[in-house]
């Protein structure tokens, strides 16, 4: 159990091992570990960012939807208003047109009635005259009854 030259040999081996580990083993492994750490951190950050973006997009979509709904409602109400206006307008026009047609018809009827009246009057006058003539041919002297005839003619005319 004595200390001897083995000690020196062991020290050399130990030194070589430590040197080798320091030079060729530790740095690459540490580097890989650091790199992985960075990668994981990056991934986590990206995931967080993505989630935030999703939230933002959802918010945006909601806003857009709301806006669109509002616009649609506005358009519908405007259309309804316009339709009501159109209906009112056409009612108005129809009414006016009807009135105008009615007036024209009335005027025409009036006119035709006047014409008929005129014609009828003329025919009745001549008919009455002829009937009176025929009666009077027998009994009445034209000269004698001239005044009466004239009066009658006047009344009929």
């Amino acid at each position, binding site marked *: *159990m*004595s*200390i*001897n*030259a*083995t*000690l*020196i*040999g*062991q*020290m050399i*081996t*130990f*030194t*070589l*091992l*430590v040197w*080798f*580990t*320091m030079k*060729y*083993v*530790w*740095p*690459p*492994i*540490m*580097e*890989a*570990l650091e*790199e*992985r750490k*960075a*990668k994981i951190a990056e991934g986590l950050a990206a995931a967080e960012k993505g989630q935030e973006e999703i939230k933002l997009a959802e918010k945006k979509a909601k806003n857009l939807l709301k806006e669109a709904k509002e616009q649609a409602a506005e358009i519908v109400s405007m259309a309804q208003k316009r339709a009501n206006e159109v209906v009112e307008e056409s009612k108005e026009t129809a009414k006016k047109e009807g009135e105008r047609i009615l007036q024209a018809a009335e005027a025409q009827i009036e006119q035709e009635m006047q014409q008929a009246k005129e014609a009828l009057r003329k025919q009745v006058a001549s008919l009455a005259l002829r009937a009176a003539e025929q009666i009077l041919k027998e009994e009445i002297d034209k000269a004698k009854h001239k005044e009466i005839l004239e009066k009658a003619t006047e009344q009929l005319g």
Partner: protein
Amino acid sequence: MASEGGATGYIVHHLTPLTVGEGFWTLHLDTLFFSAFLGGLFIWFFKGQADKATAGIPNLTQNIAEMLVEFVDGQVKDTFHGKSQLIAPLGLTIFCWVFLWNFMDLIPVDLLPGIAGLMGMEYMRVVPSTDLNATFAMSISVFVLIIFYSIKVKGVFGFAKELTCTPFGPWMMPFNLLLKVVEEIAKPISLGLRLFGNLYAGELIFILIALLPPLIQPMLSFPWAIFHILIIVLQAFIFMVLTIVYLSMAHEDH
């Protein structure tokens, strides 16, 4: 098993290293071979993982290597607050190498010496940490680093001042110096002896169990081996942590 000399002979035989040379220039071939072999195993495994290391999804072996690296790195970061290219790799090397040394303890005590015996080698001691030369080689290397960093960080004058003027101020200089020298020397000695003592005792108990009748052996060696799994990791861990602590102390200015 015990061929000549009975139980004592068997034990002594198992704890005698395979040597060449005389006097101080004696070399424990088994210690040198097994520690170099295990060091090679360590380097082979970690070099392979370092070459394949990617930031992508790690496979099983890469995971093991990374777990060890992160474990050591965490220990270093907990204790040592500064920048050093050396301390963390040093810690990893110590932890893994000492663990592998100690792991040899779990191989049945007669297996490798038996094979070596068939190959004509009379002695074979397979656990490098039961050799004081191995544990002291490591602790003395750590001690050299402690002195080196103390001088590098504090300067020769600063280090000398720390040795002579703490903890009791300049008036107690000789006493301070004595205290400090003992404190510093105690570090490598306690490091080396702790590891050696634990593993030597553990091996000795395995050898003693191997002396018992074959039917009783498993009943004792099995629990002892399980307990030893804890010991070997713990000793490797202690050696590493104390190295880190000593080196961070060397970096600290008082």
